[in-house]
């Protein structure tokens, strides 16, 4: 494909024409998307809309990391996976869906669980990280990794009929540990697989995560760094609240923090949170 003088191929100009028309976005915004790479951690309820919208909008390279396989009881919310992929790796299914809607971007499948042991290596290849996981130790681990690798983190969560969203470690803003220096008691750590979730709730939060990632990648607009979006689906109420800034005493990003790549790799996230990263070992839920 010949690249025109403005840096876009004729194919891109046609495909993304509705982006190029936007005065606030334009050719520069699209070129920034094409140049950027984003790692999405988790190809589940949040990850489904995140990777679909990142693929369709023209992010140059999208990495998807997940070790789970598609199960039929995921499909009520994980709209990226067709029934035909039940029993197959989620990253394979998600990447195939993205390739089908945009064959012009680069997709990387990381068919493994992101852990302190492999996270530095994987995260180093991307500009932006999206946390679309479903458990507490992964949330601390991903935030710490983004601090030591200096990557902005788009963090979303959904459970039941509620969702939350913010941007961490971006332009001097707080990291996850600045907000939550101490993990909650394990009794407060519910998962969708235990407590249920209305399928469209991670859909809403995932779309908003994709938007924040697109804004960080393109350099347009004002992100949710320093703010948190709180969504109550039952009453259709949304609060966007101002949260604390970076903590000078933060264990990970504070002024005197002694938290290095090495200390990250040896940190015991499951022990710290008293909570497992994977629910594979846990007893199966029996219903009704």
């Amino acid at each position, binding site marked *: 494909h010949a690249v025109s003088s403005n840096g876009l191929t004729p194919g891109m100009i046609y495909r993304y024409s509705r982006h190029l028309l936007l005065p606030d976005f334009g050719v520069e915004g699209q070129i920034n998307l094409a140049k950027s790479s984003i790692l999405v951690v988790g190809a589940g309820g*949040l990850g489904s809309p995140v990777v679909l919208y990142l693929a369709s909008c023209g992010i140059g390279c999208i990495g998807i990391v997940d070790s789970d396989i598609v199960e039929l009881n995921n499909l009520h919310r994980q709209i990226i996976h067709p029934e035909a992929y039940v029993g197959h790796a989620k990253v394979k299914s998600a990447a195939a869906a993205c390739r089908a809607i945009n064959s012009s971007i680069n997709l990387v499948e990381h068919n493994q669980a992101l852990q302190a042991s492999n996270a530095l290596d994987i995260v180093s290849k991307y500009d932006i990280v999206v946390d679309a996981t479903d458990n507490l130790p992964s949330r601390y681990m991903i935030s710490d990794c983004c601090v030591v690798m200096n990557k902005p983190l788009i963090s979303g969560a*959904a*459970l039941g009929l*509620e969702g939350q969203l913010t941007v961490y470690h971006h332009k001097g803003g707080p990291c996850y540990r600045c907000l939550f220096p101490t*993990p909650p008691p394990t*009794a407060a750590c519910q998962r969708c697989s235990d407590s249920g979730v209305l399928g469209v709730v991670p859909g809403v939060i995932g779309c908003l995560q994709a938007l924040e990632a697109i804004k960080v990648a393109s350099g347009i607009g004002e992100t949710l760094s320093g703010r948190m979006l*709180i969504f109550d689906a039952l009453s259709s109420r949304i609060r966007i609240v101002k949260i*604390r800034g970076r903590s000078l005493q933060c264990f990970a990003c504070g002024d005197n923090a002694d938290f290095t790549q090495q200390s990250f790799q040896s940190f015991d996230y499951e022990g710290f949170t008293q909570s497992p990263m994977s629910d594979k070992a846990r007893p199966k839920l029996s219903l009704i």
Partner: protein
Amino acid sequence: MRLTLEFGGGLDLLCQSVKIHHVDVTPNVENGKLTLRDLLSWVRTSLIKERPEMFMKGDSVRPGILVLVNDCDWELCGGHDTELEEKDVVVFISTLHGG
């Protein structure tokens, strides 16, 4: 002092599954003021019906709970010593981890 209290992220389960409470809290008799510290102990006594350890730890909220006064993190407006005013909205929200 009339306040609106909201509980989210599952904390409503601790107060009979009601998310929004319109309450009238008597200020401190000595100085006529009501701080977040006073409100926390009032909530623990008057609203929380079960598992108080899921709401408080010591004299603060348990880890993982954000406190917001008029859509602003209490860390930005004085923490425990924040003085509340008539019609303030105080939100207690537990962070979610699901996806």
